């Protein structure tokens, strides 16, 4: 878990993202495809600018939404793994 927590994520090349009230809308420029992520108020596009560690994102969500950190720690990896598999984001080791 410690390894994951120190990783950062950034948008993949040719991908854009915007915040919607139900979550994030990703757009793949080369294929003109959209990808809906129902993340509610947890994630923001800024979280994928390459500067936020997993740990930082968890703390940010917990602070803003008052969700216990352990719940976020359980759910967030599933969400980000899906985004990585879909090639919307890339994870990087700091």
């Amino acid at each position: 878990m410690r390894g994951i927590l120190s990783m950062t994520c950034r948008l993949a090349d040719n991908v854009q993202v915007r915040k919607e009230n139900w979550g994030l809308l990703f757009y793949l420029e080369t294929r003109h495809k959209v990808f809906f992520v129902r993340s509610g108020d947890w994630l923001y596009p800024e979280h994928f600018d390459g500067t936020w560690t997993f740990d930082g994102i968890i703390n940010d969500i917990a602070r803003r939404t008052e969700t216990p950190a352990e719940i976020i720690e359980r759910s967030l990896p599933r969400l980000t793994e899906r985004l990585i598999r879909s090639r919307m984001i890339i994870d990087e080791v700091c």
Partner: protein
Amino acid sequence: MKYADWPLSAPVNLTWEVTHQCNLKCIHCLSSSSVESPGELDEAECRAIVDQLATLKVFEINFGGGEPLLKDFFLPLLRYIHTRGIVTCISTNGTVLTDEAVACFTGNPLVNVQVSLDGATPEVNDRIRGQGTFHRIIKGIERLAGKNIPLSINTVVTSLNFMQLGQLKEMAGSYGASLRVSRFRPSGRARESWEMLRLNPEQLRGLSDWLGDDPSILTGDSFFSISQDGRRHLGLDMCGACKMTCCIDPCGFVYPCAFMQEREFCGGNLRETTFKDIWDNSAAFQYFRQLEPEACRKCPRFNSCRGGCPAVAYFVSHDLNSADPECLINWSRDISAAPPLEG
């Protein structure tokens, strides 16, 4: 809930017709383009609209309508859009390309170009797009080919070119381009040519089978209702008007889609109100978002397609609550009702 029902703060993409001016007079033109309309937006107004769209994070702008390359400020506008990071798709008739335009498109990651060609031979294409246009369009395609420009040839499928779709695909491939097919819809000048050019039920079935067999053929979102379910995962599977997309006309009026440019469907004008206000609050857009044609509600496919293309339904029946007459269910019914072929 389907993805297209998830409320969006702005469209994913939109069609922008920057001018009604066109050097061709295609008999199926959706916007009856020929000469510039009085009161078309000027460059400063267009840039201000781009600023709004960029703030809203609209991902893509598709230029079409008249011939965008005839607008004197089109290329500067395009460059400005690219500085805002918005992807563009330029739909052109291919006959007025300049060196400057080709240079602007070349190697540009935010540019896609679509050239309209409506037949694999002059005999077919020129009946639709005008005498002598086939060779001029091919010259345009040749100027764009091999230049690191994502290129597609766009064909509006009609009874005239239906038999040439395979040839058109080969032709596109020979230029390193994709073939994209569009539905023929009875708006603009196509209202006059509808009966002559529309596909019959057998052709609709052939088109559906052909598309089902070949996922490399690109289609617009209006194909969800006329093709088999196997193709649905390739794109949007219901009408995206006012949900994912909309259309800005040359004078700043905003409509649900490029095929629904009727005054009664207008959401507002960008000279008078903001794009965001039109998208969120206009009565026309709110109506389209909840449109579920009565004629379709008992159909077994209703939950899949929500009623097909409203533009075709409206222009054929003048009733938004009627069904898309070319939807898979309707053409299947027409075929089964036809007398058996004598052999």
